[in-house]
């Protein structure tokens, strides 16, 4: 048995402490330990981006990080994006522009869209497509996702 490690991780503004097995993936910590199931496991091989969250303000694939590596970090998940009772501009964009069909990729796609606009508030269409390189959608053909991100960029 490996030695469990104490971690203190801020998730959506709340400080969470736990003793975790070092091999626990961050995505499982979020989903199983904290019950934050908005972050999805898709490919589990760092490609599809369904597990995308913010780690210290930068998008990251939580299936490829151990929870122990996030000790002391500040995380944001899809659940922490919107103000109470409202929608974040990116979520509103996905709603208005029909940026999803089955919805499986959507939380990760939205987090990548938010990350993109944090770095580049007025991206070109090509920059949007490059910005979501790390997220796969098997339903939409991406067109409406690009429109959703454009909607959020316009809204500022």
């Amino acid at each position: 048995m490996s030695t469990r490690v104490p971690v203190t991780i801020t998730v959506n503004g709340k400080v969470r402490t736990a003793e975790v097995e070092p091999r626990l993936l961050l995505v499982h910590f979020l989903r199983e330990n904290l019950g934050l199931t908005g972050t999805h496991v898709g490919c589990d091989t760092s490609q599809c981006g369904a597990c995308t969250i913010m780690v210290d303000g930068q998008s990251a694939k939580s299936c490829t990080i151990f929870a122990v590596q996030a000790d002391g970090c500040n995380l944001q998940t899809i659940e922490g994006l919107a103000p109470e009772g409202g929608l974040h501009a990116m979520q509103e964009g996905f709603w208005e522009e029909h940026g999803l069909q089955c919805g499986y990729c959507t939380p990760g796609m939205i987090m990548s869209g938010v990350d993109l606009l944090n770095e580049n508030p007025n991206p070109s269409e090509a920059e949007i497509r490059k910005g979501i390189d790390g997220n796969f959608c098997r339903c939409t053909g991406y067109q409406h996702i690009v429109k959703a991100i454009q909607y959020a960029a316009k809204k500022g």
Partner: protein
Amino acid sequence: MIPTEFDYKRASSLDEAVSMLVASGGEGKFIAGGHSLVPLMKLRLSEPSLLIDIARIPDLAGIREKDGKIEVGAATTHHAVETSDLLRRLAPVVAEAAGEIGDPQVRHRGTLGGSLAHADPAADMTAVMVALDAEIHLKGPGGWRAVRAADFFQGIFTVDMAEDEIIAGVQFAPVQAAAYAKLHQKASHYPIVGVCAVLQASGGTVQSARVAVTGASTHAQRLPEVEAALAGKALNQATIDAAAAVAGSGLEDINSDIHASAAYRRAMVKVFTRRALERAAARA
């Protein structure tokens, strides 16, 4: 996918990291971004019993100018390389190539040192470091050692590094007339073929060139046939076309997989050598 069990320690200095590694008796592995190692551990292709986290060692990440050279710390993320003003100014090819790695999420976590130590046959920065003639700085229990990138990469996932050494960083000279051209694998964004070209030209003539390829064979390596076809020639499209036409003729063990056959890779080595040379020439 769940990796096998392991213990976890965090190192606060290079010396402590090396001592922890030595004490593990060959069972430990360093982790920084983990974007090469964690996928391997999930597949149980790597089963270290100890992970030594080096991501928070002070000064292991960072980009600085020193004695006319540029130093990049091993724990510097690809995103930090991509967005570095210093690199954009003094060695734009390095920042541009980093921006072609994987996707934004991978670039936020993956590190230069990790990519070089792992030496995936289709890593991007391996070819860039070879073409730049970068020095890779290693620390072990016996002290420091510097290895030229062209000597560092020796085979598939094989580098000139002892089991008890750590990469501290890389050092290279500023360069303008250089470019990296890459054929992306659409899902992973690994290069099916990537070529980095560095030109030394004056008065419209190529003095010398260093051209390196990744993705095509077991490891990043120079293309001496291309370099020979450029040296001493007028820097023009005819020279570039002639050099690109021989690209890869000396390569052995061409990779073949579900993404590209060996024949296709051979063809693409020529195409992407030409593109890299054209872009480098535009800056010469």
